[in-house]
């Protein structure tokens, strides 16, 4: 391959995936750690060591499963290491108090209330093209109030490839046409005390894997408590207390 052809090829790759996408191997290795957002919980094991800058990830699950609580945990982790994060909130459902309790530094968070899919794309592209952000969260909100679907976010994917930020999409349903690395968040059981619901537990993991990270949330502490990995818990749980569903999710036996 001649030099002009090589230049043309590099130009096309960089145009599509950004100027950061290509680097020498040693540079890539040295930057790998600093480009990773590690929450320091079992979620890291599910996501392969943390969420990497320049990669998209989706938290998908039904309403009140806990995906938003997990996303806030990730945002808090990203902001702990410096930089800024952006939260695109088309359904205007962002709760500052919950974010604060999850450990998010609100001074370093920019919330964008986009009105439609076009504005979500505009804001997402601007954030991902900027050098200033470490994380972009797109919270599509509850499906009944959603103004944008996962499929609408397809144009953002090329931008995130070359961005110093990670893209985290929080949605109730997976996209039909857009395939992204996904962490499925599923509720396991409600926690009740004295006849009142005081919290719930949920599992997070890749759909194709049986491994799950388990968390519980109580009304007293908005941040999810890390219970550990499914396999670790199965080893220590007494027989009959914890059972596995056919989908691999652990349920508390009634």
């Amino acid at each position, binding site marked *: 391959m001649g030099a002009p052809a090589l230049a*043309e090829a590099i130009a096309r790759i960089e*145009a599509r995936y950004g*100027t950061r996408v290509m680097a020498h191997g040693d540079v890539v290795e040295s930057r790998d750690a600093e480009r990773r957002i590690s929450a320091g919980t079992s979620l890291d094991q599910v996501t392969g060591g943390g969420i990497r800058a320049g990669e998209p990830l989706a938290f998908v699950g039904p309403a009140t499963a806990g995906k938003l609580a997990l996303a806030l945990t990730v945002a808090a982790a990203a902001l702990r290491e*410096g930089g800024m994060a*952006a939260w695109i909130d088309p359904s205007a459902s962002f709760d500052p108090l919950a974010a*604060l309790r999850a450990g998010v530094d*609100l001074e370093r968070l920019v919330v964008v209330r986009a*009105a439609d899919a076009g504005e979500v794309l505009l804001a997402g592209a*601007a954030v991902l093209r*900027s050098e200033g952000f470490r994380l972009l969260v797109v919270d599509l909100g509850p499906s009944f109030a959603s103004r944008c679907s996962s499929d609408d976010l397809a144009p953002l994917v090329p931008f995130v490839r070359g961005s110093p930020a990670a893209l985290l999409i929080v949605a109730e349903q997976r996209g039909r046409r857009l395939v992204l690395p996904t962490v499925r968040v599923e509720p396991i059981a409600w926690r009740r005390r004295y006849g009142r619901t005081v919290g719930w537990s949920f599992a997070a993991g890749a759909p194709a894997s049986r491994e799950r990270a388990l968390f519980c949330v109580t009304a007293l502490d908005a941040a999810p408590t890390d219970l550990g990995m499914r396999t670790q818990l199965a080893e220590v749980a007494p027989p009959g207390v914890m059972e596995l569903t056919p989908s691999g999710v652990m349920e508390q036996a009634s």
Partner: protein
Amino acid sequence: MNAAVVVRNASDQLHARSLATLRALLPHVGIHAPGVYICDLAGTERVLGAPSRIARRIVERLSRVNAPAAVAVAQTPFAARVAAERTADGDVRLVTQAREYLAPLPLEVLPIEPKLAGELGLLGMRSVADFAALPRGAVFDRVGRGAARAHALARAEDEERVRADPPPRRIRARRLWDDALPSREQLVFALRTILDELSAALASEGLAALRIAVRLERDETEPLRLERAILPPTRESAALLRSVRWALEERAHLGRIVGCLIVVVEVEPARGRQIGLFAADGARWEEAIASARYLRERLGPGRVLRTRIADADARLPERAAEWKEVIS
């Protein structure tokens, strides 16, 4: 030796013209005031000739640009300036003994406060020579540092060197390509080397680009001109390239590009965070806020926000937090 040049009644244009002419002629040109310039002639004798010859050349050059000037050459910048102010336009004065030249002049030529000048007058001092004759220690003890400096000037002992501002360097880079670049991707790739060059030039000057102008020469059509404001100002070639790339992507058709000229139109001194003295976090913060401001412009007010907790125990959720625009 120092040469003082006085161009009387210098308007802004005349000042700019005179300054450009002097900078083209001499290496160290300081500006005392608009129309009053002090030139350090140290080291110029071997190249440009004796100071008197240089002075005549200054008068001649300035007269060519319609800037009639009086020039004086003296050992100290102060004596040279005082002499030039007392020289007719188009004339040259050579002061060999600065202290003797200053001696008969009135005290008003010295930079001393009117109150002190009045007190010295009451003490019977009328001329520079009277003031210069006072012992240095006594002047410093009785009237302080300001008068001590004036005393040194009166004795032609001032060691102050000409503070010469280097002429503003035009930072620009240009490329012409034999084969036209048909695609945006190729153009962006080619622009990288130009912006690397500009980045290196900015780094050597300690500057950050605030505004750049891009002129793209096109085959068989008019040149395309773009102007970009760089916020936050930077010298990083990646950030400059990103800005130019955004501008190019806003155009549906660029045409066949055969050349490019990029000029840094406006600069500011690079701050610590822009030259990597501090953690990258500060630069990230600035860039994030700049992006947020851009979004606010595009989306309108009330859409790009930051929040803070006003009252975590508020009974109504809407009172728990306050939202504010990302403006600063």
